[in-house]
């Protein structure tokens, strides 16, 4: 069968030393990112419901990726503002997997500790910690811990809502735990190892 051409070949990259930031991001993204295909049309920036809060529109970010502006890209809040609504993904005329690239950029920014505001990475980490402890997410613990840490002044304002949720039975006070937590742990530990080595 004619099989999928290797992404690197399509990107015109045949040697290891050609590794650029663009390529690195591309390789770290789940599917085939098609980042190299961006024509800077702005469909993504135009489609984004949260664009006004971003430092750079996704399109601009891709141009910066190409220019190898590593630090500026990873410090940008763009990837953290992304709400994963996939509007840009389905509209992109070049079928760039924008949302997945955003995930990649988040991961890279965390690893290299290049983020300006720790709220979002912390939230993700807290969430992940919960999942790794219980196997399920725990909204109550997550929300309260997160607000306490980052928006303590807002907490009183949010209290009626939280109380409402609790009194209506919509917030469990105790986390649920899956049965085979040890199995999940083994899987995740091994996956993390693989992540490190790949």
């Amino acid at each position, binding site marked *: *069968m*004619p099989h999928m*051409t*290797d992404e690197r*070949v399509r990107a*015109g990259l*045949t040697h290891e030393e050609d590794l650029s930031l663009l390529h690195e991001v591309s390789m770290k993204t789940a599917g085939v990112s098609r980042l190299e295909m961006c024509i800077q049309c702005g469909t993504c920036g135009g489609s984004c419901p949260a664009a006004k809060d971003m430092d750079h529109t996704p399109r601009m970010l891709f141009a910066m990726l190409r220019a190898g502006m590593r630090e500026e890209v990873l410090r940008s809040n763009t990837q953290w503002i992304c709400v994963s609504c996939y509007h840009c993904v389905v509209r992109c005329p070049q079928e760039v997997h924008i949302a997945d690239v955003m995930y990649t950029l988040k991961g890279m920014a965390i690893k290299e500790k290049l983020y300006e505001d720790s709220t979002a990475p912390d939230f993700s980490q807290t969430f992940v910690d919960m999942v790794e402890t219980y196997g399920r997410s725990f909204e109550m613990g997550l929300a309260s811990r997160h607000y306490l840490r980052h928006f303590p002044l807002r907490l009183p304002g949010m209290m009626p809502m939280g109380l409402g949720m609790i009194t209506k039975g919509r917030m469990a006070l105790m986390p649920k735990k899956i049965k085979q937590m040890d199995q999940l742990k083994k899987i995740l530990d091994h996956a993390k190892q693989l992540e490190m080595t790949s």
Partner: protein
Amino acid sequence: MTDQFEPTIIGFTCNWCSYRAADLAGTARMKYAPNVRLIRLMCSGRLDPTFVLRALSGGADGVMITGCHPGECHYIEQNYKALRRFLLLKRVLTGLGIEPERVKLVWASAAEGAKFAAETTAFVEEIRKLGPLCWGKDEDGRMKDDEDIGNSSIKIHPSSFEKEVPA
């Protein structure tokens, strides 16, 4: 030259697309693995499975078949016919104990010199990994050293057959 195994590969190309892609790779001076020797057909639809079997039994370690992209055949849709034969041929080869990866189908348009070069190099690497086909050319119809059937346990050692090596 190093000691690494250098496979011999026969490539069948379509006159209208992949042969021209090979020409283009040449014109653009793209470098690729020298192990492929090309045969021009008017169309990938001309590819008779006999050719592949003949190449493999005659000393080729792999066969690369190239044609126009689906929907772009110069003879309208003959490359689909090549595709069907290819898929069935691979199944038969598997039954004959030949790794189906030794036969590869690549779509390459006349403009895809780079693709032709890249696919060729990649294929040579794949075949290199598979190793020599080691297909016995038993000119007298006989294995080189038949051995006795053993005494009390299996002692039949049709020794591994060596590929004919140029003197």
